[in-house]
Structures are given as C-alpha cells and as structure tokens.
C-alpha cells in the first residue's frame, strides 16, 4: 500500500508542475494589461513613467522564465503574491473563502448522495419498471438543463412564488438548501444512472448467483456483494467530473450571492487580478488532483484484488 501511495504522489508532483506551467503561461497570454487596470487607466491619465515604474515593481519587464522561476520560488513557500486589487496576500484571500465554498460543496454532495444512491439502487431493482423510467427522465433533465437555469427556476418557485426559502445569502441552513440542491441535482441524477448500470452489471455476476444459491438474503446480496463493484465506475466518473462540479459551484455561487471561492475568482477575472486567478486555478487543480488520488486509493480499499495485483508487479 505504501509503495502505491509513493508512486501516486510522484505522479502528483509531475501533474502539479505541469499545471503550474499552464496556469502561468495562460495568464501571460491572456489579453489585457494588468498594469493599466491597476493604475485605473480608464478614469485617470497615466503617464509612461508610471507604467514603467509599476512594470518594474511587478517584475513584468523581466524575461518570462525569470518571472516563472520567481513565481515558483515563492509558490514553494506558499506565497502566491499579493492581490492587485485588495493588496492582501492571495493565500489569505483564498483561505478565508475556502470554508464558505467547502460548506456549499459539502451540502451539495450530501444531497447528491441522498439522491444518487436510492435512485440508482431503486432503478436497478425495478429495471424497466416505473422507478427506472422515472430515473431515466430525471437523468435526461439533469443532463440537459444548465444549473444556472435550474437555480433561477428554483429561486422563482421557492423564494419568489412560495416564499419558503431565501434566495441568497449565507448564515442559516435554510439558505444552503437551494444552492446545494441546484449544484447537486444535475450531477446526482446522472450518477444514479451510472450506479444503476454498475449494479445491473454486478448483479449479473456469477458470484451473485452463487450467493443466492447459498440462501443469502437479498438485501445482503445487494449491499454487501453487489454494491461495492457497482460503486467503482461512479467514483471514477465523479473524480473525472469534479472539475465541472467546481465550475458549477462558481455559477451557483454567483447566482445565490454566495461569497465563496467562485465569487472571488469571477471578481478577480473581471479585474484582471492575475495573482488571485492563478491562485484559484492552482487551488482547484490541486484539489482535483488530490481527489482523484483519493479515488484511486479507494479502489484498493473497495476491491483488494487490485492492491495485490499492483503490489505483485
């Protein structure tokens, strides 16, 4: 197990290096000049000298590889630079926003689990019966509607028409329900279909037949013998689609005025606040890579055969 983790962490370092390279280059290639934005060139007269001075201060007059080297050196010390807009360290900005987004993500995933597992299991038990058809329709809806639209509809229904749930803000649990549902639903119904397919596959395995022939109770067969193998594909897709999940989180945060990482990133993009954008992209990247590492490691816990195979190599 330790060797496996060691291998994966080595891979992780390589991935993170490439990620940092991309983040840096993308930001340098992006249109617009941050110097002009910082000096508020739209409203004030900016002299050539002012620009040159600031460029020199920010290190923009040096070759790219030097800039990258410096950036990387600071990054190693968790110094992502200072926000052009607020002047505060980027890391501080990110750290204050993380718990807020984490709260939203946590509730969204809870709602997701609460929909995915029952719906997936239910439609696998009643294949081609009405529960299955219902989940099929829900998955189609979930896959086709964008979540900002779903969010708007939910706000209209529950906040405006019925007036039972608040449409924005943070602080109370009632304020989490709508954004978390908006974020979780579209993924949940699609994952439910994946879980159904996985379950149908694993329920048709020979060992399930053998377990039935031994007189094992049906619920034990479902949860102890079949469920494990069925979860693997769902976990894989979950790890891979985590990026779009976080993208969805950005949209939902804007929609429900949720002051998390997503709002921070959007504000930073509008203001060309490069250090913050870089910080956000890096953080998201690290998060996605780490989650996928966890997903990979969970395979070995779920199916011990894989562990032994890999260790034998």
């Amino acid at each position: 197990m330790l060797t496996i983790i060691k291998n994966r962490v080595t891979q992780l370092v390589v991935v993170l290096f490439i990620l940092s390279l991309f983040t840096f280059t993308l930001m340098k290639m992006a249109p617009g000049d941050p110097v002009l934005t910082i000096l508020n060139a739209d409203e004030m007269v900016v002299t050539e000298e002012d620009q040159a001075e600031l460029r020199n201060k920010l290190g923009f007059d040096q070759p790219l590889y030097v800039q990258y080297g410096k950036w990387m050196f600071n990054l190693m010390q968790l110094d992502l630079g200072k926000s052009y807009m607020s002047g505060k360290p980027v890391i501080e900005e990110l750290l204050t926003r993380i718990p807020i987004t984490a709260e939203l993500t946590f509730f969204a995933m809870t709602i997701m689990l609460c929909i995915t597992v029952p719906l997936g299991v239910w439609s696998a038990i009643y294949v081609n019966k009405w529960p299955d058809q219902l989940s099929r329709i829900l998955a189609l809806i979930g896959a086709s509607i964008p979540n900002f639209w779903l969010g708007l509809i939910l706000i209209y229904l529950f906040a405006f028409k019925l007036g039972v749930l608040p449409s924005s803000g943070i602080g109370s649990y009632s304020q989490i329900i709508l954004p978390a549902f908006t974020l979780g639903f579209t993924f949940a119904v699609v994952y439910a279909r994946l879980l159904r397919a996985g379950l149908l596959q694993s329920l048709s395995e020979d060992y399930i037949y053998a377990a039935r022939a031994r007189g094992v109770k049906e619920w034990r067969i479902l949860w102890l013998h079949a469920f494990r193998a069925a979860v693997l594909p769902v976990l894989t897709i979950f790890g891979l689609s985590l990026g779009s999940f976080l993208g969805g989180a950005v949209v939902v945060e804007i929609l429900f005025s949720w002051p998390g990482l997503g709002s921070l990133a959007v504000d930073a993009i509008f203001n060309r606040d490069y250090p913050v954008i870089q910080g956000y992209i890096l953080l998201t990247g690290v998060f996605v890579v780490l989650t996928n590492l966890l997903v990979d490691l969970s395979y070995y816990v779920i199916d011990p055969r894989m562990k032994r195979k890999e260790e034998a190599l």
Partner: protein
Amino acid sequence: MIENNTPATCENNLLVVENLSVIIRNSREKLIRNLHFSISQGEIFGLVGESGSGKSLTATVILGMISKSLEVTSGSVKLGQSEITSLSERELRNIRGKEIAYLSQNYQSFFTPFIKVGQQFIEIIRCHTDISRKEAKKVAIHWLNKVHLPAERVFNSFPDELSGGQLQRASIASAIMFQPRLIIADEPTTALDVLTGERILDLLSELKEELNCSILLISHDLKHIINRTQTVGVMYGGQIVEIGKTSAVLSNPIHPYTNLLLQSRLRLNKHIQHELPTMLGEPGSMAEEGCPFSKRCPSVMKSCSNIVPMSSLGSHHSAACHLMNAEREERYVTR
C-alpha cells in the same frame, strides 16, 4: 405395448421433476420442454448434453432462482414433500444452501471476490441458523478441515489468494455445512485440470456416502458421467431425449444423439478409426416441432416432426425417439 411413462419411479425419490416447461416471457420461446426425471436418495444423477441444452436452467429451476424474464408454464419440482415452484421467496431461501446446495462450474466466481472466504462462510451459517459469529467460525473451520484444506489460512484469505482446487474444495465445504439432501454440481470440474477434477469428484463421492445425500451432476464430460453416475439423463434442446440407468444407456443407447455422443469418445481399449464420427449440423440448432434433434439426426424420418413421447425400454431405461418404435415394428414384421 409401449408404456408412456418414465421408469425408475422408486419409493425413495428425493427430487421429482414432472412435466416441467420453461419459456421466455416475451418471445414465448421454449427453453425447457416437458422435463421429466427423478433423483432417488443417495444416487448420483447425471445430466449430460451440449451447451444451451437447458442443463443449467434445470438446476436454476430446482433452486427456485429462475429469472423474472422466464416463466414456468407447467409442471412441478418436488423436493421431498415441498413443491419448489410454489414456495415463497423466504421459504426458498431457507432451502437453498441448506437442503439443496449448489456448486458452480466457475470456482473463481463462486465466492464474492472482495469478501474474505471465512466471512462468506459465516454469512451462510448465520443466514440459516441463529448462532454467534464465534461459534459460526468454529463450524466453518470444522468443515474446511473436512475437505482437507488448511482451514485457518483459507478462512482468512480472499478468494483470489487460493488456487483453483482449493477454491473448489472450499466451495464444497460451504455446500455441505448443513448436510444438504441434494447437491447440484453444475460442471464442477470444467475449470480444473484433469487430476484436480478427478480428486474433486472423488471427494464429492466420498462426502455423498458420508452424508447420504444425492448429487445432480451436470456435465458435458462423458467420462465423468459414465464413471460417476448411477442414472443419466441426456438432454437436447431443453428436452430429455434419453434417460435410464447409466449402464443400460451405455450398453444400449437408443436415441441417435446419445449414440453419436458415445461414439465421439476416444477410447484406449479400442482401435481408433481413421476419423471419429462427428455430429452433423450446427451445435444447438433445434427443431421447433417434434424431436428437437431432428434437424441434425442422421436417421431422421417423416414422423420426427410429430411430438415424440417417452417410451420405456425395460424398467430402467427410456427414450424419446420414433426410431425406437419404428425399429420395433420392423422387428415385429421381420419376425
């Protein structure tokens, strides 16, 4: 005259399958047609036939585990006094693994791969009795020892950490824990090498004597059927075309399918002809009407498209073939 019933309806029948028919619900395609056989106490009953002839499906029906897409249209399956086809799921669950044990052809997928063998033993024991995990472990170890396995080690292993022979032994141990009345062995040796396979069958025969149970041995390996069984049923296209005491069927095969099967064996004590006789036609192709083998039968007649009743030939042997009646009539004529 010819009687239209099956022979060997002894008093001590353990399992009686009568007139059993199974179809696919949607397409109404017949998978098993008017199956008729019985297994008596303490015997090994062989069911032989090519893939798709309905052998394993018959086992599934006996276990009461037939899939929802299939339907039993007629007939009965009686184990002792209980009618399998009309039992509730709960009652069936109590019979499975306890009264009827099942051994699968693929030993590698007999145990669930991510649960330790021992835990699966405990699961079975606790599904059928109310004892603590500790006591259940003792029971499991006892039976693992019984099949000559290193019990402690096997108990703590995952299925893929054991060899094929060990797994098959472990599955036998799990099957006999409750001293079942019937063991269904669905091609128990297919995935094993010849020697291991023989040893497994030796073990099964040994345990059968000890537990005084019956075995339904499903196989397409004639040598096992010939060596191990007392009674044999030859299946083709979901139908038993010939049934009887193994020795009787062996010495005097009636149905052309049985005949061809037996001729296709390689034998050490016989000079090999240039070529072994082969069967005509596509394997598995069967006629919709009448005798299912008529499409491939070398001695097919016009009357073969009519339904062929089982006719007995002595008290321990019967077959479903028009040839048999025709020959007899011929014999009568020539005499």
